[in-house]
Structures are given as C-alpha cells and as structure tokens.
C-alpha cells in the first residue's frame, strides 16, 4: 500500500488511520536513547484492533525495545503510547491492559500450572471459584486442560509456552505482547505452535503484537508486519505487500531472496550497469535506481532479456535453485524453478557453464528508488 519510511514529519505520516478504524495501540513520536546510543528514532505506529501484528528485524533493530515500551517495562525518552485510545505513557506495566508472553516464558516454578494461569486474576482479586474456572477454560483453549495440577517444572518447552499464552490471555488483555515466544523451540514444534497461535488469535480476537527475527515466522503469522532497521520502521504492510513491493533494498533482501539489478530508467527501458537493457513498467518512477526480481519470477527461456551463465544448480525438492552470472558483469542472480518447470528444461538441459537467457513478467520487476546520499548517513550513527 504505502511505503511508509518514517521521516522527519511524524505527525503527518499517518493522518488517516486513527480516524477510520479503532487502534489497539498508537505510538506517537517514540524515541529511546541510552546515553549517546539511539535505540529508536521518532517511531510512529498504529496497530489495529484485533490484528496479528509482527515487529520484524534483526537483533538490535529496536523491535524488543518497542515491545518493552508498549508493555511499560522500558520508558521512552520521548513520545506517547496509547492503548485502546487511552494514553498509558506514564502507567507502570501492572496498570496497563496488556499482558506478555515472555521469551523464557517466566512461569512461576513455585506454583502449579493452574495457579500460574490464575495468578493475574489473583492479583486482580477475582474470587477463587471464578478464577479457577476461567483458568481451566484458558488451559482448555490451549489444549492443556488435563495439566492443571502439574508442576510447571515438569512441562516440555511447547507445553510451557502454551501455559504462558494461557496465563496471559486469561486476563482478557486489550493487547497481547509476544516476545519471540517460539525462539527456544525446535523447528517442527515451532511450526505447530505457529498454527496454534494463529488459531487461538482468531478465536479470542485479541490484538497480538509479536516480535521475531524470523521473517518466515512473521510472514506466516501476521496480518501486518513492521520491518525495523536501526531503530526506524523501514516498511509496514501485509506480508504480500512487503514481499511483492519492498520499499527498500534492505526490505527486499531481508524478506526472502531477491535479485536486485541496478541501472537507470529511460522511458520504458531500464539500462543495466552491464550495458544490457530490460523492459520496465511505464508507471515506475523516473528516478528508479534498481529492479527487484524474486527468484521464482526469473524464468529461463530461449530468448529473454538477459544472458547469463549457469554457475551452480541445487535440487531442493519442491524447487531447484539455479545460480547464474550475468554476462559482462560479476553479479550473480538466482532463479528458483518449480519441479514442474525443471522437467521441461531437462529436455534441453541446464548444465553448469551453459549460457542461458533470462526473462520475467514485466510486472514482477519491482522498481526501487534508492537515495544513495541518504544511505550514507541514514541516522547519523556515531560509528
């Protein structure tokens, strides 16, 4: 939709959202610095009510700091946090309508499973029969209905994670924060719990804010993703928007694999650095500096736009990954052929060292405008 690079005018960057849909969370001009080190630069973010939102980025990008500021565990240097329309900037975590699933789960070892789940209600002075009933319901929801009397020290990682989710959700928070909750689990279990989390989220309808560094996890779970980089939001959008129309080289490279071809636009032709020219959509900006083409969009044909030499070939089951070097350049590009497409090619042969021709659907080449000067000093990093 919109490629929102957060820039110098935070107030005007999201003018329409707050009026139309109800926001579960609004961050306005959030800044966080530790001495000279700036962790977050003027962050503005709206998270819609009931959505599954992911904060995605590598370690040190500011995603956990953002989560901690929403939860109230870290105070922002400047800016305001609203939850469900209420300014909570000055409230401590225990007085915010938010609960958290911690990375280490942080289950209380001196309490049983059900006592853990009922803890929040005990603090809220909910009468014992009611809180036990609700805790049991929450355990049923996460599929641990028969585990109520167990010691939490005797749970497996996946079970502990589900208890942590139940313990947080049972308090009916306006927002549930999840801080890399699947990070400690093995891949297979992680996949299963991702599905479970997504089902639970739809069932309860609570706004989920999920922090992860795993782009695949974010793509699979989120309604919308915010990609953070160096304490700024690089792009916000649905997984599709971000994948198909990355707003920057950073996003294109962080989400999935990309072939990024540099050059300049002239009418409907894009002149590449190696002298070749390829077609470009007419509505691409005049100052387009590069094209992003996903490996699965790159086809190997008889007479395409670009010539390349096959460097390596790897059969991965569902797809085959073919790495090629563009003629007249050192740049490598990657094509990901479906098994089906590979079968056709194998009649003609795709041998290492063979020259091939590359083509793609013109729409599949997403134009990028990279401001090179801006890239040099993007946030005045002291290093």
């Amino acid at each position: 939709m919109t490629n929102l690079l957060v820039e110098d005018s935070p107030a005007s960057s999201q003018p329409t959202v707050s009026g139309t849909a109800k926001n579960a969370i609004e961050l306005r001009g959030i800044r966080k610095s530790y001495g000279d080190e700036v962790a977050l630069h003027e962050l503005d973010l709206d998270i819609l009510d009931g959505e599954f939102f992911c904060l995605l980025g590598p370690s040190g990008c500011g995603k956990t700091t953002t989560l901690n500021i929403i939860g109230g565990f870290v105070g922002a240097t400047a800016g305001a946090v609203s939850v469900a329309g209420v300014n909570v900037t000055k409230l401590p975590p225990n007085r915010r309508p938010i609960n958290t699933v911690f990375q280490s789960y942080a289950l209380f070892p001196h309490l049983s499973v059900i006592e853990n789940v009922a803890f929040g209600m005990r603090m809220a002075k909910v009468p014992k029969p009611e809180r036990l009933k609700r805790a049991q319901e929450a355990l049923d929801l996460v599929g641990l209905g028969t585990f109520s009397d167990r010691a939490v020290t005797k749970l497996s990682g996946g079970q502990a994670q589900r208890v942590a989710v139940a313990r947080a959700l049972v308090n009916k928070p306006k927002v549930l924060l999840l801080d890399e909750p699947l990070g400690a689990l093995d891949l297979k279990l992680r996949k299963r719990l991702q599905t479970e989390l997504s089902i639970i989220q739809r069932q309860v309808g609570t706004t989920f804010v999920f922090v992860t560094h795993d782009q695949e996890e974010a793509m699979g779970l989120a309604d919308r993703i915010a990609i953070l980089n160096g304490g700024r939001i690089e792009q916000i959008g649905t997984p599709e928007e971000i994948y198909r129309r990355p707003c920057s080289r950073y996003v294109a490279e962080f989400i999935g694999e990309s072939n990024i071809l540099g050059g300049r636009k002239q009418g409907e032709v894009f002149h590449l650095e190696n002298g070749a020219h390829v077609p470009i959509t007419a509505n691409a900006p005049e100052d387009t500096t590069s094209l992003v083409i996903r490996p699965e969009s790159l086809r190997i044909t008889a007479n395409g736009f670009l010539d390349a030499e096959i460097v390596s070939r790897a059969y991965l089951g569902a797809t085959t990954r073919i790495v090629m070097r563009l003629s007249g350049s050192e740049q490598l590009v990657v094509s990901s052929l479906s098994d089906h497409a590979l079968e056709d090619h194998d009649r003609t042969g795709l041998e290492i060292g063979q020259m091939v021709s590359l083509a793609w659907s013109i729409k599949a080449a997403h134009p990028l405008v990279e401001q090179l000067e801006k890239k040099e000093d993007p946030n005045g990093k002291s290093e």
Partner: protein
Amino acid sequence: MATLETARVPDAGPGPAKPDAKVARRERRNWRQYVGFTPAAIVFGVFFIAPLCLIVVYSFWQTKDYNLVPDFTTKNYATIATTDTYIKTLGKTILMALLATATTLAIAFPFCYWLVRYVPPRLQRVLFLLVILPFWTSYLLRVYAWVAILGDNGAINVLLKNLGLTDSPVRLFLYDTPGVFIVLVYLYFPFAALTLYSSLDRFDWSLLRAGVDLGASPMRSLVTILLPQMKLAMVTAGIFVFIPILGEYVAPEIVGGTNGVLMGNLIANFFAGYLLPLGSAASVLIALVILVLLVLFRKGLDTKDIYGS
C-alpha cells in the same frame, strides 16, 4: 491426577519387576558407591556420634565427691527443670537465638537482594568478599573488637560523650544482653548472607517482570513470587545461624557480663566445676531443642519442595 500422570509416563518411576540377577547386581553396585563415605563416617562416628552418646549416658549418671558414678538417675534433668535460673537461662537462650536469627535474616536478605539485583557483577564479588573477610580473622579478635566499640572508653561512648549527650559511660551495651545480641547478629551475618546470596543469585528475575505484567505491584511481586521461592534458603540460613547461637558461650562470656549469660555459659560452668552429669543434661536439652526444630522445618519444606527435580 497423580495416577493419570504415572500412567502416561511409565518410565518415570522405578520400573516394574526386573530379573532378579539384575536387581542383585544393581544392589551390589549401590553398596559399593557408598565406599567413599568411609573417611567421613569414621570422623563423624568417632568425634561426633560417640561423644554425643557419651553425653546422653553421662546425663543419667551422678557425681559423688567430684567423681563420676555410673548410677542411673533422672535427677540431673529434675534439677534443671526445678531450678529457676536454669529454666530462665534456657528460655532466654532460645529467645535470644530466635531474635538474633530473625534479625540476621532481616538484615541479610535485603543486603543480598540489593547486591544481586542492583550491583554489577564485578562489584558484587568485591562487596561480597568484604562480607566474607571477617571469616579470615580470629573469632576472638572480632569479639574483643566489639568490647572496644561498646566498652566504657569504646567508640560509642566516646562519641556520645563528645556530642555532650552523656557524662558517664552508658553501660547498656557492654556486659549485658543487648551487647550479646548485637555481637551475635554481627558474628552470624556472613553465614546467612552466604546462603541467601547463592540462592538469590540463581533466581530468575524475569519472573518478577512477569508478575508485574500480570498486574502485581513491584512490592506484591516480591512477596508473592520471590519470597515463596526463597523459603528453602531462608530456612537453611536460619538453621545455620540458629544452631550455633544456641551453643554460643564465648561471645556472652566476653561481652555479656553477668546479665548476658546464656545456656552455653552454664554448660561450660558445669563442666568446669566437674558437674559432668548436669552439664550433659543441659547439653542434651539444647540438642533436643535443635532436633525438634529441624524436624519441624523439614516437615514444612517437604510438602512444598521448591526445587522438585
């Protein structure tokens, strides 16, 4: 619930009947693995259990003309039970031990909490070394140092005099019960601190964050999450402090004067006066108090074992 669990995890408990030969072999191996205890068993047997038995036996004997006579009697216990001073001293000793233990814990816990939670690790080690340091100096030296602090010309009295608050030395602290109390708390603080520190150091502080996240105030989190998990450490620290204080006699001897006498001093006096049976009976009483206490604490802990596997 419990049956359900064991049914689901069959290999959790000891397995069902196994071939006899295997069991026998395992038992033999089990016996062998205790061989390493032999040196400790000898030391404890000869220097602890045997003397203890001897004391119990002596406590039922009598003395005639300063000589021990093996005639069975319960007179020694009756003497202690009917002599006002002895009963009072025993009561006072238990009370002193309880109060000093409680005070020591009340000082050591916040100290260790603060040390672990707010002091950077490197400084933590330095500060903790300062706590341990007194262990490396002579016990007597440390007690006499308190005489210098609490005495007539000690630091406190000099300060009070210079401030013009008193003309004559205040004798409240030295050669009386309060002085003994202060010195005991000082002497046993490191024991409590060591135990509590190692336990707090292993505590997962993110649990308090979770508590606050779930609506508990920071103070409430401490009480409902940290304290229950420190129960074992508190009891252990308490036992480490309480038991030696019950038997203390050097500190009361030096700083306690006539009013600060504890059971330990009585026992020492009995033995010094060749009243071996009476001293033994008093010792057995102290041991009984400790035994009862240990059993009580063990019961309290077993039901809710915090570190259950």
